[in-house]
């Protein structure tokens, strides 16, 4: 245990913890940008700097461990001035299109600029340095003019998805995030999971499918469980005007945290797709009881009511079981169904029909 003070408050805490951790545990807010609790800290954005008594330089709270007798100020004039200027540095080189930016309202840079009342400085190198929407990836929209080089994307890809698609190229002011060795994302083994988008604090990486459809405060978030497989990831559906327009990670998801796969994050477009089946269909010959011919109209799909469709199914089950026995029937269920539905299907198979021929698509 070590004893430290933060802003005059005496705190006893464990050695090995960072200033940021201790501050958080004690309700003291320190702003961060490159730091994310899921990723290993790099200390590069310098927003979380604090003053440690006796030190010649300010220390980044996210990477500096506490030591006995440490006296920390998180709000001194020096600290506030430097945080402000650091934000000015970032904004001086950031496009000022917040009015039309997709992530306006949930952009961490914007929030900090607001918190610190930072005016955009007159100096700096604003403007477009990189092509907008520069990568052909169908899901991820890339605009590195907005990148603040926090590298969360690099880490998210490396540490969470373990694909190492993103890297850093060049040096100094010319430094930029690149996919692979300067290729496209897909060429760099990207599997379009969108983890980088989820962790990007700015609009540098955003979602292409719903680009320009809504901003954070215009959508309702509905937390749901993914229906694609048996893992049970949770996320938020973004709903606007009663339509699902996108998916965003829900940091509190118990199973998966912020992580999702390409299907969970981007496979939602079937919901309002015009080809989607909303009612059951049966073959015309079954419905009308006509003789089935090899080709032609008796084979058409005809939309009908659930009762009609289920009656036909029940009738066919019965006929088959009576003719050739229960084990000539088999039941395949789906991961897209709930557990309860799968349970019922299993009951139906074993107890009503009398067969153990049951299988499931999600034998992952």
């Amino acid at each position, binding site marked *: 245990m070590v004893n430290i003070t933060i802003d005059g408050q005496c705190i006893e805490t464990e050695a090995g913890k960072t200033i940021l951790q201790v501050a958080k545990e004690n309700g003291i807010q320190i702003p961060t940008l490159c730091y994310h609790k899921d990723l290993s800290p790099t200390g590069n954005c310098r927003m979380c700097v604090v003053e440690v008594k006796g030190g010649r330089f300010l220390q980044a709270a996210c*990477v500096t461990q506490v030591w006995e007798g440490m006296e920390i100020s998180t709000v001194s004039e020096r600290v506030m001035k430097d945080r402000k200027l650091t934000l000015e540095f970032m904004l001086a*080189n950031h496009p000022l299109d917040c009015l039309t930016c997709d992530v306006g309202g949930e952009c961490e840079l914007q929030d900090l600029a607001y918190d610190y009342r930072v005016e955009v400085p007159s100096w700096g190198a604003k403007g477009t340095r990189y092509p907008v929407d520069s990568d052909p990836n169908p899901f991820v929209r890339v605009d590195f003019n907005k990148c603040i080089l926090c590298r969360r994307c690099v880490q998210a890809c490396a540490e969470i998805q373990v694909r190492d698609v993103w890297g850093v190229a060049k*040096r100094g002011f*010319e430094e930029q995030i690149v996919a692979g060795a300067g290729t496209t994302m897909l060429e760099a083994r990207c599997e379009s999971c969108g983890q980088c988008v989820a962790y990007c604090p700015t609009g540098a990486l955003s979602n292409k499918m719903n680009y320009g459809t809504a901003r954070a405060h215009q959508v309702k978030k509905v937390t749901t469980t993914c229906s694609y497989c048996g893992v049970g990831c949770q996320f938020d559906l973004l709903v606007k005007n009663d339509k699902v327009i996108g998916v965003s990670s829900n940091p509190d998801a118990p199973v998966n945290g912020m992580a999702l796969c390409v299907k969970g994050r981007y496979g939602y477009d079937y919901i309002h797709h015009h080809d989607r089946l909303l009612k059951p269909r049966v073959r015309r010959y079954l419905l009308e009881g006509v003789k089935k011919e090899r080709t032609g109209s008796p084979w058409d799909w005809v939309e009908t009511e659930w009762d009609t469709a289920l009656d036909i199914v029940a009738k066919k089950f019965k006929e088959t079981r009576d003719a050739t026995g229960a084990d000539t029937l088999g039941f395949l269920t789906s991961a897209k169904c709930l557990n309860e539905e799968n349970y019922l299907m299993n009951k139906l198979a074993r107890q009503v029909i009398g067969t153990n021929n049951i299988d499931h698509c999600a034998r992952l």
Partner: protein
Amino acid sequence: MNRFNSYREEALQKWDSQMVHSEIPVIYLGTASCGIAAGALDVLGTIQQTLTELGQPARIVQVGCIGPCYLEPIMDIAMPGGPRVSYTNVTPQKAKRILQANLTEGDLAPKMAKGHFGDEAFSSKTGIPKFFDLPMLKPQVRVILKNCGFIDPEDGDHYLAQDGYAGFLKVLEAGPQYALEALKESGLRGRGGAGFPAFKKWELARSAAGEQKYVVCNADEGDPGAFMNRALIESDPHAVLEGLLIAGYTVGASQGIIYVRAEYPLAVKRLRKAIGQMRSYGLLGDDILGSGFSFDINIKEGAGAFVCGEETALIASLEGKRGMPRPRPPFPSDSGYNGCPTLINNTETFGTVPAIMRNGGEWYQQFGVPGNYGTKTFSLVGKVKHTGLIEVPLGTSLRQVVEEVGGGTELPFKAVQTGGPLGGCLGASQLDTPITYEAMRDQGSIMGSGGLIVMDESTCIVDMARYFIGFALRESCGNCTPCRIGTRVLIDRLEKIIRGEGEPHDLEVMRKAADTMVKTSLCGLGQAASNPVTSSLNFFAAEYESHVHDHYCQAGVCKGLFQYVILAERCNGCGLCVKVCPANAIAGKLRETHTLDANLCTQCHACVEVCTKQAILSLPLSAEQDHLLLSEALQ
């Protein structure tokens, strides 16, 4: 051990018979990079050819850099029984004449000789001064550079004959504790820039827990204008290797790594050769000299990023990662290369260690001042008359270095950039600052690894600041915000001022940006990158102000911020300027005062450089070509 002693005996005998008491003349030629750049290889060809022509036997010994680079190529001849005599700025023709005089006529050619390494009697007999009495060398001491220019760096026996590896043997005998004690007593501080006590670092690495440990020699030396580490390796590679070996033994490491720039091919070649020689002496490998200590040394060539000189970036680069600093702690002594405890020191730090081990820590205290014991090498470059590699005791004043060692400047002295590109630009009023880690820091500079760039009145301070910030901008790794963007902010302001568009608030913006860069950058690069700007703003405020308020660059560097005018009082009508002016902007008859048409002038500088009367002045654009005004400006 016995084997090694016999190697030493042989080396001593060889040194004595071939160098000290040679029966044939010994010709020394400096072929470190500085000598080669000045044409030493041509001279070498001539020497070989001349010897064949003369049919005279002589031994050619290629030595490293002896220091005064401005005198290169340097060829020395020691006739049998006589001392070594130095001839400087030798051309092939000159070399031939000197050789003929010495070898066939018994004539030392004293007019061409610069100095000798013999005794007083020889001086009075020949009129040639002692080499080390030359004004550039007299204030210097030679601890680190002791062997440089004296031994053949590619011949391990030469090093052995100079007490080579005696320091290591002593540490083997007396144990690691002796090494730590000696280092502590010596007060040696890291020569890589920050001046961290070497003993503390070694002790931390020694006491760090871990089976596998590494010692790393930092020979990245990326500062423009600095070449101390290169010269040391090229001239005396074994000294550095012995230091590394002693460090390995002391901290309990089994592997040494030298991180050296790939741009130093000769240094790399000599290191490789020297490592091979160590192996054949039994100083590398398993169970060295029967001591049970096993050690090996690898070379890793760096791709030339300045930031890779920073220790954590260097380690990342060694590991094959992007060369980028990371926050400390953990310090490399706890978690360095591959996560193992790693001792990392500068080349010169390692190069100093053998002498301290041989002679003891107290011996080292005779050099320098308390808290800053020992000597430090500097590369003295720029507008001083004597440029080169120098070694002075710490505590020596900048004035002594610039005026005595450097011989002063041709035009009036203006400033000296100390500590390399991250250091401070100090003016005449700071010249009495003693060179110590603390005094340098108090002046807003740093000791750095030892670049000293001297500037005279022809240098514009704003342009100088732009040069160094431009370097920091390109070399910043880009990892952290203040350094990545701050350097850009600074250079934008400086360029604006240089274009003549500067406004008073630009100076404020620069000060503010610099302040935050210092306090919040992640590594030493960003923390120090603004030093050239801040120090020059402090010491040369008037020059910035004249750029900003009057749009006037007195040094005549920032194009468009001055006009050249020929001062009638000084012009003797020699016509030199007329000949060199590519724009035909200068007119005037021979021996009559010339005039310069500012409208045609492209401000290329050529006329100023050829004018021997310093009659061409850079005046404010608003100045009338009025006699009175000009004379006023002169004062």
